[in-house]
């Protein structure tokens, strides 16, 4: 440890430059694609909460989320150089996240088939309320039954609130394909949650005000 007689110095913390922190998307994209670490820092501050939320809500709280978050940013930074001047960053980042999610959902499907990944349990979820943990584990077991495209369509529409046109664009699919995937997912999830005793009990208790 350092001797106590040494004068203490103020800690230096690198803050994003005000110019870049307030820069428009095109300027930020140019700076980040040229390798400016300050721009990378601003991109991270601006978009990592959104990307982490999408990953968590789509996949469930897996240990891989932080690694996938890194992968999203590495891919996005690699592709930023080819982004048109007029393009907005948020839809671009969402689209990159969707591609990473799509690959991960396909890998997870194989892992489950090979029994490398077990079903969800209530202790996998961090909520302090056991009823919420049980409802979430039931729901993610249901989502695991969907094919990756239908699951993505469902989570983007219902958990992230994307419009159907945004959804189609993020999934690089036609409008009719996106609608078809979403309709398929809606029908399967609706039927499954109705059949699921744990989720039904929680939803009923919540509608009566017994749950938070």
């Amino acid at each position: 440890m350092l001797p106590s007689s040494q004068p203490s110095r103020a800690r230096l913390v690198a803050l994003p430059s005000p110019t870049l922190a307030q820069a428009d998307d095109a300027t930020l994209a140019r700076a980040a694609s040229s390798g400016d670490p300050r721009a990378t820092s601003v991109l991270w501050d601006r978009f990592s909460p959104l990307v982490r939320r999408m990953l968590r809500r789509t996949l469930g709280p897996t240990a891989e989320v932080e690694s996938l978050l890194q992968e999203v940013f590495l891919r996005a930074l690699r592709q930023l150089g080819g982004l048109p001047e007029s393009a907005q960053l948020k839809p671009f980042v969402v689209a990159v996240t969707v591609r990473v999610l799509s690959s991960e959902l396909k890998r997870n499907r194989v892992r489950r088939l090979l029994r490398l990944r077990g079903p969800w349990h209530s202790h996998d979820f961090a909520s302090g309320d056991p009823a919420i943990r049980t409802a979430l584990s039931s729901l993610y077991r249901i989502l695991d039954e969907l094919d990756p495209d239908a699951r993505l369509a469902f989570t983007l529409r219902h958990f992230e609130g994307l419009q159907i046109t945004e959804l189609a664009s993020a999934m690089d699919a036609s409008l009719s394909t996106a609608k078809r995937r979403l309709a398929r997912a809606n029908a399967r999830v609706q039927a499954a949650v109705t059949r699921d005793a744990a989720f039904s009990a929680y939803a009923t208790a919540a509608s009566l005000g017994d749950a938070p």
Partner: protein
Amino acid sequence: MSFGESDSPTLADVEAVVRENVSGHVDGDRREQGKQRLLAALRHRRPGVARQARRVVSIAAALGALAGGSAYAWKQHSGTRLTYDVAGGLLSDSGYVRSSGASGARLTFSDGSRVDLQDGARARIAAVDAHGARLAIENGHAALNVAHLPRAAWYVDAGPFVIQVTGTQFDVDWSSYDDTLSVDLHEGSLVVSGPPAPTGVLLRAGQRLTAHEGRLSIEALEQAVQVAESPPLDPPLPEPDPALLDPALTDPRPSPSAEPPAATAHF
């Protein structure tokens, strides 16, 4: 929470339970660690690597298809994440580890890596995959012996600092009370990044890194031990070793010719 009014759950119920309970929020330290990890990955990335990687993946896929069932079984095995067990300590479902006796706790991973937590030390296993783990030292002293295997990737978080490890033996001491980090490296090399060194600092075998109050210093481990055992001296500080300031040297591969510095370098 607003839920549908009918007896059967609706899609609005599904939306509500997820939107209200699954967020993207993490504390500031964890957000900063993620950023530092990204910046470190970008520094180590070389131009053209992605294209080379894609080519290698294509060739590997073709070879994999030819190899048939045995290669498939091997890939299955290699993709399995590491397992671990704890002796002399308590492990919670969330990966929180705390020693339960005076002799401390030992974490043993399936790749042969070991982490010894000294009595009173607290840590959390934040993530485990096929090639390593991410361990957060919340407070206290830990001795790590990370197996040197191909593609090994281990990370140790201590407050705002991230230690990037491939295969090595080192001691970490993190005090959350006065935000002081000390790393003694016995074998191999590792990279430490944090607020005083956002671009990362390479540490080689036989060196000690100390970070406190926004200041970071590296000194030879033997010298540090001698100083600790002899009466305190106050020698003039030498110029920083320029090699340690060169970001190009943050490549964690050990250099056979590397000698520990004879004196202390301050950042």
